[in-house]
């Protein structure tokens, strides 16, 4: 117990000795844990508002779509002139306890404020239906010449009750806005009409008579039947048994509709989970660099600890506990931040009713987030902690620098370069692992940036304001900002650690005549090669992410701008720690080996 207390006390004291570094470390891990929490709590959240909507609208368990009879044997459904009859016969099928319809549906083109958009117009009775009676959020229900918009579609178009619109050239008035559980909210809607473009358009309700009037020879009227089953869980089996899935649309269960409704959040969740893993990689780099940098500063402390009787394992334990404490705090802060942020991201939007409720923070979420934070920390801390604990006590007490690597070709090459480059390349070559970390950090960040550029292009190609796409872009943007912030922290950490580690050699270079400016430029230059390589590798990395989610690539010029932009940003970011490192008192640094 005494040993545990001693380790805890030493760890906490050291954290309090350097509160700024501890805070930066905390921030780096909180960024990861918050994003991971967000990704995890999003799982399954859509079912709540969808279920609320189903309850509020007497949502169907199965939506069946029938083709009109046709003499053309090549027309879809035309092989069976009795399709409609078969559709109506479904109301008597085993397990069906209620129905509404069949309702006529036809494709329509809506013009509003100079914009033309595709839509699906469903004819409904003016009296409420037993199954799928859309819940009005504004205005009233259908009337002749009056259209009711699906809520998400209305929001995307910016229409409201009282607006005048044209449908297939005829004048209509918006009389209401409603939600339904029979179709996923716009833009994830399923095509119910005979001709289905890649974007079937949003759903509007009109009277049966108006729906029939809107039909053209090219756009025949389809029939939609809503069914209620005695066992809603068996809806998929019912569809498989009674409906022909070969012709789209044939029919769909409420679970299929939920999948469609969930698609937007699935994208967000996927983006958040990918983002959180990218952030986790960056956090590992941050912690590794920070711990490595602090080790260079803590060597003498470890030596003192060992000199007064501490074992190597005690020294390692102190260092590990120190960072584990930060990781645990960061996990708690991350879970809190993630759960508080989740409602902002998971707002169900206009297409569904009912709140998402409080995101479920389960024990498994907390466990996974905590394990990630601890894993990140231990992975980054273990090697330097063991290395520090095994350092000779005498060497540690005199605070001697860790022997650097020698790269003969680089030394020869750098001799021909201007002084800042000479110093920078030689400093960089001393610690190749740090270069790898920096490269990795930049690679991950640039991959994220390229992915977001592609996602924005994707949104830009669409002709409507799509709340789901916008939300996805917002999520990606937040992830990218976090990535960039963490990469910036990394750049500063790495330069700081480099300056700390190279303090003896840079002090010596100054004693031999290098100016502080040359040293500062050299320390910044030391980060440039890894930034360049990381940025170049990040381009295919980002394109790979875009390919994985099926988004288009950003234009070449954007990719070309990313590389020099990253390098210049890195050079600028490293200036502050480099300048500080270059201004350490020379005499004091050189004398420290003799104390």
């Amino acid at each position, binding site marked *: 117990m005494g040993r545990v207390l001693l380790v805890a006390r030493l760890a906490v004291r050291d954290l309090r000795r350097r509160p700024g570094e501890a805070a930066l470390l905390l921030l780096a891990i909180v960024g990861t844990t918050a994003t991971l929490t967000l990704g995890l709590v999003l799982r399954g959240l859509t079912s709540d508002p969808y279920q609320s909507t189903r309850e509020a609208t007497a949502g169907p368990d199965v939506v069946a779509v029938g083709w009109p009879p046709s003499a053309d044997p090549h027309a879809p459904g035309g092989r069976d002139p009795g399709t409609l009859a078969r559709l109506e016969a479904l109301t008597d099928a085993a397990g069906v306890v209620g129905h509404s319809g069949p309702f006529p549906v036809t494709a329509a083109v809506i013009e509003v404020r100079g914009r033309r958009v595709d839509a699906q117009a469903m004819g409904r009775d003016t009296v409420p239906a037993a199954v799928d009676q859309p819940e009005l959020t504004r205005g009233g229900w259908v009337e002749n010449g009056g259209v009711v918009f699906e809520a998400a579609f209305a929001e995307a178009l910016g229409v409201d009750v009282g607006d005048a619109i044209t449908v297939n050239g005829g004048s209509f008035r918006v009389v209401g806005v409603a939600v339904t559980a029979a179709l996923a909210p716009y833009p994830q809607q399923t095509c119910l009409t005979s001709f289905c473009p890649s974007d079937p358009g949003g759903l509007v309700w009109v009277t049966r008579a108006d729906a029939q009037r809107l039909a053209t020879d090219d756009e025949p009227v389809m029939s939609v039947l809503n069914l209620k089953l005695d066992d809603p869980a068996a809806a998929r089996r019912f569809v498989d048994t009674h409906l022909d899935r070969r012709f789209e649309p044939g029919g769909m269960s409420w679970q299929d509709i939920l999948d469609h409704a969930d698609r937007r959040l699935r994208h967000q969740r996927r983006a958040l989970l990918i983002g959180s893993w990218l952030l986790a990689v960056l956090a590992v780099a941050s912690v590794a660099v920070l711990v490595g940098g602090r080790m260079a500063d803590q060597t003498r402390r470890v030596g003192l600890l060992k000199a007064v009787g501490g074992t190597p394992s005690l020294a390692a334990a102190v260092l590990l506990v120190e960072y584990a404490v930060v990781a645990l705090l960061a996990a708690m802060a991350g879970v809190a931040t993630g759960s508080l942020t989740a409602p902002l991201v998971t707002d169900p939007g206009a297409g569904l009713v009912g709140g998402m409720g409080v995101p479920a923070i389960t024990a498994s979420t907390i466990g996974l987030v905590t394990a990630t934070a601890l894993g990140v920390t231990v992975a980054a801390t273990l090697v330097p902690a063991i290395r520090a604990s095994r350092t000779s006590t005498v060497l540690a007490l005199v605070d001697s620098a860790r022997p650097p690597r020698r790269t003969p070709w680089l030394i020869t090459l750098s001799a021909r370069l201007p002084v800042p480059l000479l110093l920078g390349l030689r400093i960089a070559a001393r610690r190749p692992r740090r270069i790898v970390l920096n490269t990795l950090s930049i690679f991950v960040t640039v991959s994220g940036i390229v992915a977001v550029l592609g996602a924005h292009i994707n949104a830009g190609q669409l002709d409507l304001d799509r709340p789901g796409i916008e939300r996805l872009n917002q999520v990606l943007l937040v992830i990218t900002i976090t990535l960039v912030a963490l990469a910036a922290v990394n750049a500063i950490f790495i330069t700081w650690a480099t300056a700390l580690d190279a303090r003896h050699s840079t002090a010596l270079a100054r004693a031999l005549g290098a100016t502080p400016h040359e040293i500062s430029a050299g320390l910044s230059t030391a980060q440039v090669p890894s930034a360049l390589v990381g940025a170049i590798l990040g381009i295919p990395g980002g394109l790979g992410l875009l390919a994985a989610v099926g988004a288009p690539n950003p234009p070449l010029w954007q990719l070309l701008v990313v590389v020099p932009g990253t390098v210049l940003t890195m050079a600028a970011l490293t200036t502050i720690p480099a300048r500080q490192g270059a201004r350490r008192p*020379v005499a004091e640094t050189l004398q420290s080996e003799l104390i």
Partner: protein
Amino acid sequence: MSDIADTSTSVLRTRGLCKRYGQGESLVRAVDDVDLDVAAGETVAVMGPSGCGKSTLLHLLGGLDRPSDGEVWLGERRIDQSGEKALARMRRTAVGFVFQAFHLMDELTAVENVELPALLARRSPRAARHRATELLEQVGLADRAGFLPAALSGGQRQRVAVARALSNDPLVVFADEPTGNLDSAATLEVLRLFESLHEAGQTLVVVTHDSRIAATADRLISMRDGAFVDETRLTGGTLRQLGSLAGFEG
């Protein structure tokens, strides 16, 4: 006050040089009102107990640290008020340092260490390497040019450090306890080297508490509590005499 010295006999000159740390009761006068003149070609040894301010004085003289008060003149230029950039240029061209801990770059070979000041002074790589090779020959380490410091003995490392200090033909070489980390045999190697530098007319300021090193100087200054307390002009202080005195040679 003009920055141009009114006398040209001294290579190095200080007036009222002070370095203070802290304030009030915790005030420490590391260097206290020191006046010093070092003539060209002269070797000056500064002796004193640990903590008396010897190293601080050397850092002030070499522009590695700034005085709290007083003047430092190197050649014809006053350096105590110079900016960092000017001081760096001065260190690059006018002074050379030899440290007790050698301070060689571990990842550079002997010749790469020696050529470094010349590269920092923007000499061509070829000229820098040529000069470094010459200097290594001069200090008797031509055959160790490609060795890393870790593969050299203490005396050899210090000789590399001396060669490095001479890389840019400095006005003054400052040596801070140059034999402090060396055994007797290595000390003798360095003593011989300093003697040859002395004979070649190199101006040297050596801080030491090793009387054997001090005995090679033209002048011996004793320091205590940051101030000069005694000054002795030595005559005929040669390595041979010192060696005999120290029992190194017969």
